[in-house]
């Protein structure tokens, strides 16, 4: 096992929301106690439905905002908001390449901006570095002078990845990097990410809701529900034998591209509860088929069950 680059323990992020003039403000626990490590050359996938806190986790790891609790260490040193050191180590790629690139800047300017802000390279060196990176992600050199609107979605995502690579980071946080792309383009970008990881030994935190992509790319998976980690483990273990009822339901709800294999679907009734008013006990209990009195009373802790870690009183199998 290689030394982890990023180590997070009990990370949490609470937001205070005002409830109106006469109501007392509520507290949304967007992320509640997530622990993980990111190792060089490895991919940790974070999966879950909308509102489960996976993007909040991405924002914490890339230090766009500080955690409200827990520790985040980079190379054994605690992370600080806005430190150049942290920015050089951890970079982020966002979901929508149509929104994350400034339409008024040329590709060259977009790529050089991280260098201009965080290093003291001169213009010539910056341009050289930008051209190297463009080549690496499969963009042509004449694209340097173009504007983002002249590119397709896949190309734009390449620009976004190139921008993240400009500072030679060791960790990339990928927040749904392929969800906005078409299937044939998605495969191109996933291949690019795999190549970059092999060449540069990057650690990925891959955030996605698409389980087939996660199964393909990740070494380890963390399943989240309503701000809490409900199951974590190696990809193969987790996909083969999900222990948490939510993981099992999520796996069975994902459509499989094989019409001959009509799978039995575990139908979840109801919807994600409001994070402002989460259910008592285990957050999943109102939708869970195995819920008992105990689940409604107290929340289970993440504990090792077999080969994976599960937060459930009645793990499956």
């Amino acid at each position, binding site marked *: 096992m290689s030394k982890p680059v990023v180590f997070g323990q009990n990370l949490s992020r609470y937001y205070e929301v005002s409830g109106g003039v006469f109501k007392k403000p509520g507290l949304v626990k967007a992320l509640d106690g997530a622990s993980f490590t990111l190792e060089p050359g490895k991919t940790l996938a974070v999966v879950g439905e909308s509102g489960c806190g996976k993007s909040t986790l991405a924002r914490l790891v890339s230090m766009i905002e500080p955690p409200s609790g827990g520790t985040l260490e980079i190379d054994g040193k605690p992370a600080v908001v806005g430190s150049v050191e942290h920015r050089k180590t951890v970079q982020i790629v966002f979901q929508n390449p149509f929104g994350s690139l400034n339409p008024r800047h040329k590709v060259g300017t977009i790529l050089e901006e991280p260098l201009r802000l965080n290093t003291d390279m001169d213009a010539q060196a910056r341009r050289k570095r930008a051209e190297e990176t463009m080549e690496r992600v499969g963009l042509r050199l004449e694209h340097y002078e173009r504007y983002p609107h002249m590119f397709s979605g896949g190309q734009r995502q390449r620009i976004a990845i190139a921008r993240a690579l400009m500072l030679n980071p060791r960790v990339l946080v990928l927040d749904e990097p392929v969800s906005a792309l*078409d*299937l044939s383009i*998605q495969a191109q970008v996933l291949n690019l990410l795999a190549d970059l990881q092999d060449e540069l030994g990057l650690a990925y935190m891959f955030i996605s809701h698409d389980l087939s992509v996660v199964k393909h790319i990740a070494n380890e998976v963390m399943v989240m529900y309503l701000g809490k980690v409900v199951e974590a483990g190696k990809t193969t273990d987790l996909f083969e034998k999900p222990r948490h009822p939510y993981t099992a339901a999520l796996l069975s709800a*994902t*459509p*499989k*591209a*094989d019409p001959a294999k009509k799978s039995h*679907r575990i139908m979840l009734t109801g919807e*994600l509860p409001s994070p402002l008013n989460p259910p008592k006990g285990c957050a999943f209990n109102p939708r869970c088929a195995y819920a008992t009195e105990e689940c409604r009373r107290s929340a289970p802790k993440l504990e090792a069950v077999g080969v994976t870690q599960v937060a459930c009183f009645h793990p499956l199998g």
Partner: protein
Amino acid sequence: MALLNIQNLSVDFKTAGGLFRAVDSVDIACERGEILSIVGESGSGKSVSMLALMGLLPWTAQITADKMEFDGKDLGRMSRRERRKIIGKDISMIFQEPISSLNPCFTVGFQIGEVLKLHLGMDRATRRKRSIELLDLVGIPAPETRLSAFPHQLSGGMNQRVMIAMALAGDPKLLIADEPTTALDVTIQAQILELLVSLQREKQMALILITHDMGVVAETAERVQVQYAGQRVEEQPVLDLFEAPHHPYTSALLAALPERAVGRKLPSIPGVVPGQFDRPTGCLFAPRCSFVKPDCHKGVKRQPAELGHALCNHPIASSGSKTSAAGGAA
């Protein structure tokens, strides 16, 4: 006789750079009680062809078709007034983003009632009764109280259920679902798909499901039509399509699915879908195809039904060796 029979439908958009052909001589046929899926990437013209059928395209669109028949009536030749009686009643449509397709200013009950009033001429009391029935049918708990809810008070999945209730209000013979679950989470997606299929069976409606998700196609459709750059490139029953795709595009698309991947690298399709200004002559897929031959750049011919109506000069005959060759085209 087919319920819906569209032949040689083309849609051109007037743009600043000249005419852009979004749908290129597409045939669509759908039987009563059938689930047809139209699958394709963005820009393949799958939504535009259905919007053309519904008459929902802006004035910049020029629609031409040899035949646009629904239930024995030619939609292309009838007046707009007559057509409006069919659209929304016998043919109805649900869209990708439920929150933006519902009017935020009116309650759910009002919006369902509107359909009932317009198409069925029901009075207020019957409308209310029927609205409650409809909401109950699509699985919304406590429908009486939900009638007075505004769209922003409901979740995405609930809003999509309301859209389905509205679409079902006129007891349609054909329901067109345009990416109905793309904006929803997987567990909610499973619920909505299950609902659509069970309603389709119960009412013996025809359902046209437009999607880009191969998993959704595999689990719901009976017959699949694959579109690429505005053309229909292949059409087969779902089992055959996944087993033995005949068009190189379909084959490459299936190979690019992460769940079908064997190694770390996915067999991807090089290049991008052609746009307005780089439309190739001959076969539109030729620049990205791994089986391309010189004659593909001159023209392309339609193959017979045994070869999945593939629009290809050199279709893949059997699934065996050639599919894996397509896989190596990364």
